[in-house]
């Protein structure tokens, strides 16, 4: 039992800089820590428990180390510690520790089953990276708690959900998919790069690390594997080094791992090193079969895909997060149905994930009541431009409480330009979040076809909000 007991240290407010300092400080307690994300760190308990004399002593030590960090102390010790027989148990325990003062929650081994069985199945998505549609299906099947899932035979879950069903059963039964990291293992894949011209800034280091990540993913991918735990090490010309253990139960894709390394690099370089980075390595400790990617007809991604990924990597090294890809967000605002998100922060290689990101309805709903009917303007005017809508007598046109125009719109005045309205449609009222005074939004939309003095025709989407008309989109 004690072999797999772990502690999770949790910050209630995510802060990469503080987490980096916390991770460095916790190395005093045990050399093998894993940074789970920007607010959680995992420590194996076996070694420290023997050294410090019990789990309470270790947890107390961890808490004092955390509070000793100045930045954390200034946030009123907003840190909690959870100890349990599995990652999931410890994470839930740490989460339940509350905020405001540092708290320790230890789940003894003989109480773990009782603790887990009453947890909602939603914790699987939150802490164990189980897919949202799987969690939703478990709910619909009546398996709303971890106890209900653990009571089902493992083979039944495997039949219904495939290998993921087996993993879910292990988690709900208090087990771990991978034992905590207590000592380095023989490497599964090792890549490194030496840089004669040292790299002193974040972006070039991240770009070089991204190339290493690509090599790891390609190498393991050719064997149908993906790295689930690895050690990333960066060393400067003056032998200063930063080493981190990274773990992901589903295995790392390029974007996810590069994003973690970016955080590691940014935090480390932010300390003010005496020299630039001259060496970096990735040592893959554990792998797992890669179920997610549907390979091409001939078994691999095409050359065009690889060229595009490489180009995105090079562009990211030039302009950073300005390399963006579309993501479907939906909503009632036609100009924000798609958002542009940084390419480095999303998965680009897994076609299923890419499809889910851009397909309306795959993750977020595709139909919204109050959404604009008909054509969506292809040109978004950002930031939106204030205009005037006037009637034939030059009086401002507004929308009445009965959702009608006060008078017939005849002119749109856009700065010094006066456009005659030849056709207009609307108004269409939209009222969002009326129950929330801080976020409520009330507006009316209008489509109009206009003609300029030069007889040039155009069409626009206008919005009336807080008694002002705004031009938000153009049917270009």
């Amino acid at each position, binding site marked *: 039992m004690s072999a797999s007991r772990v502690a999770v240290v949790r910050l209630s407010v995510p802060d990469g800089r503080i987490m980096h300092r916390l991770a460095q400080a916790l190395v005093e307690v045990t050399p093998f820590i894993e940074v789970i994300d920007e607010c959680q760190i995992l420590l194996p308990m076996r070694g420290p428990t023997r050294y410090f004399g019990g789990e309470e002593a270790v947890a107390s030590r961890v808490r004092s180390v955390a509070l000793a960090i100045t930045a954390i102390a200034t946030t009123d010790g907003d840190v909690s510690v959870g100890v349990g027989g599995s990652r999931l148990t410890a994470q839930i325990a740490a989460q339940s520790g509350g905020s405001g003062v540092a708290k320790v929650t230890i789940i003894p081994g003989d109480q773990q089953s009782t603790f887990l069985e009453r947890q909602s199945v939603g914790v699987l998505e939150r802490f164990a990276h189980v897919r949202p549609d799987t969690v939703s299906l478990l709910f619909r099947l009546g398996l709303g708690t971890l106890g209900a899932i653990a009571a089902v035979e493992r083979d039944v879950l495997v039949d219904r959900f495939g290998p993921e069903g087996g993993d879910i059963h292990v988690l709900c039964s208090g087990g771990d998919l991978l034992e905590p990291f207590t000592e380095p293992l023989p490497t599964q894949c090792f890549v490194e790069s030496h840089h004669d011209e040292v790299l002193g800034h974040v972006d070039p280091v991240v770009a070089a690390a991204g190339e290493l990540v690509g090599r790891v993913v390609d190498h393991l991918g050719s064997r149908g594997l993906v790295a689930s735990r690895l050690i990333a090490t960066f060393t400067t010309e003056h032998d200063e080094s930063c080493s981190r253990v990274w773990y992901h139960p589903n295995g790392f894709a390029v974007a996810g791992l590069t994003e973690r390394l970016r955080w590691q690099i940014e935090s480390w370089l932010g300390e003010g090193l005496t020299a630039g980075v001259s060496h970096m390595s990735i040592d893959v400790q554990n792998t797992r079969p890669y179920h997610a990617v549907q390979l091409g007809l001939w078994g691999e991604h095409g050359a*065009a895909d690889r060229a595009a990924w490489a180009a995105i990597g090079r562009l990211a090294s*030039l302009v950073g997060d300005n390399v963006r*890809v579309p993501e479907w967000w939906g909503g009632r605002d036609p100009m924000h149905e798609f958002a542009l998100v940084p390419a480095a922060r999303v998965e680009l290689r897994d076609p299923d994930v890419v499809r889910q990101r851009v397909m309306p309805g795959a993750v977020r709903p595709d139909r919204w009541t109050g959404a604009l*009917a*008909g*054509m969506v303007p292809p040109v978004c005017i950002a930031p939106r431009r204030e205009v005037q809508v006037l009637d034939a007598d030059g009086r401002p046109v507004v929308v009445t409480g009965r959702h009608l125009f006060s008078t017939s719109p005849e002119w749109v005045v856009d700065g010094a330009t006066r456009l005659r309205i030849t056709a207009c449609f609307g108004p269409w009222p939209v009222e969002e979040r009326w129950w929330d005074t801080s976020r409520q939004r009330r507006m009316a939309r209008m*489509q109009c076809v206009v003609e300029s003095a030069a007889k040039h*025709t155009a069409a626009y989407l206008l919005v009336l909000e807080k008694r002002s008309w705004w031009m938000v989109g153009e*049917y270009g």
Partner: protein
Amino acid sequence: MWVDPAKQWAECMGAAIGQFEVVVTELPRAVPARDVRQVATVARRCDGVLVVLADQPHAALAADVVFEANGSTWSTVGSGYLASQEMRVALRGRRVAQPHVFPLVLGASCTDDS
């Protein structure tokens, strides 16, 4: 993909051309003619399509094919809302043997399903 060109338009174009099948770009106003010529040279050497969005063709970027849209008209669903846009697109350029004009309809699939 969206790239903020700022002062790195030529570098970004150099990284993108030839790696993507289609690259669409606006021509920043302040970009030096020398950079435009370099990008044009790279584009000619590589496979793929470079689409330049501009009101007027740039002297250094002699396009093989030019699309010019004119004469938009809109149709509506009843008197409800704009449903589609029809325009006339003129196709010309040095790789076009016979310049011609064809109609293009956008948004025709948008129908009232209420």
